């Protein structure tokens, strides 16, 4: 059997970084938008 485990490890690590980073980016963007939305709503409510 060929010894190529490094490619498999790199692929799994890269996938975890890309998808994990994407989940974090959605979370932070949602948080920032919600903060602005809350500020806008409080301005509207005045």
């Amino acid at each position: 059997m060929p010894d190529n485990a490094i490619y498999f490890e790199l692929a799994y690590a890269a996938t975890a970084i890309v998808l994990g980073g994407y989940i974090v980016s959605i979370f932070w963007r949602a948080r920032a938008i919600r903060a602005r939305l809350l500020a806008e709503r409080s301005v509207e409510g005045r």
Partner: protein
Amino acid sequence: MTSPAKPAPLTAPRIRTPALDPLLTLGVVAFIAALVRAAFFTPPDAAQGMAQKILYIHAPSAFTALYLACGLVFICSGLWLWLKDERLDRMADASAEVGLAFMTVVLITGPLWGRPIWGAFWTWDAKLTSSLFLWFVLLGYQILRGAVEEPQARARFSAVLGILAGCLVPFIHLSVYLFRTLHPMPVVLKPSAPSMPNEMLVSFVFSMSAITLLFAGLLRARYRLATDRAELEHLEARR
């Protein structure tokens, strides 16, 4: 006698952190479980070695990016041009971005499998080149949405680009049959029975289900983000 009203707090109300979406949480847990099963509880291929295990991420990610994400972008974009419902535009936007993330995974894991098996990270054959082209189209879709401020024009331009992205999918799928390519023929998604040992097939189906669930969770979270952003744009435009 009525008690005096409580004075308003002097500090601004604390922003509630978006709660963890249960579907996204389930998708992440299933995805981690699928990676662990593929890495530690599935035998490696005798001819390809451990690199064969890249298939458990690469193929389900390609299925998700091409057929689920781009399929949804195509359908929602076409329906938006007909119905002009902004929810369809938001769904196409969310699906295109999640599809771009999965297409990025496809374009990273593919070359990492190709290097030990073909001896090269990349070859400019029809399947790989058209997949890269789709990645650029999905990236262009995001840039376009960021560049156009007027919501109707943004939705119209991106619907046209979304339909074009969807039209690429059958070409990418059929390119292994139409052209001589290095890319292997499908081993599971083909008219005949899957050519894979049972133990590997179970891991493959598990990975496919987990990545589909993760896609659904990401899509829902991203759609909510698009809805909040649309409401914010609406409030800002009214001021």
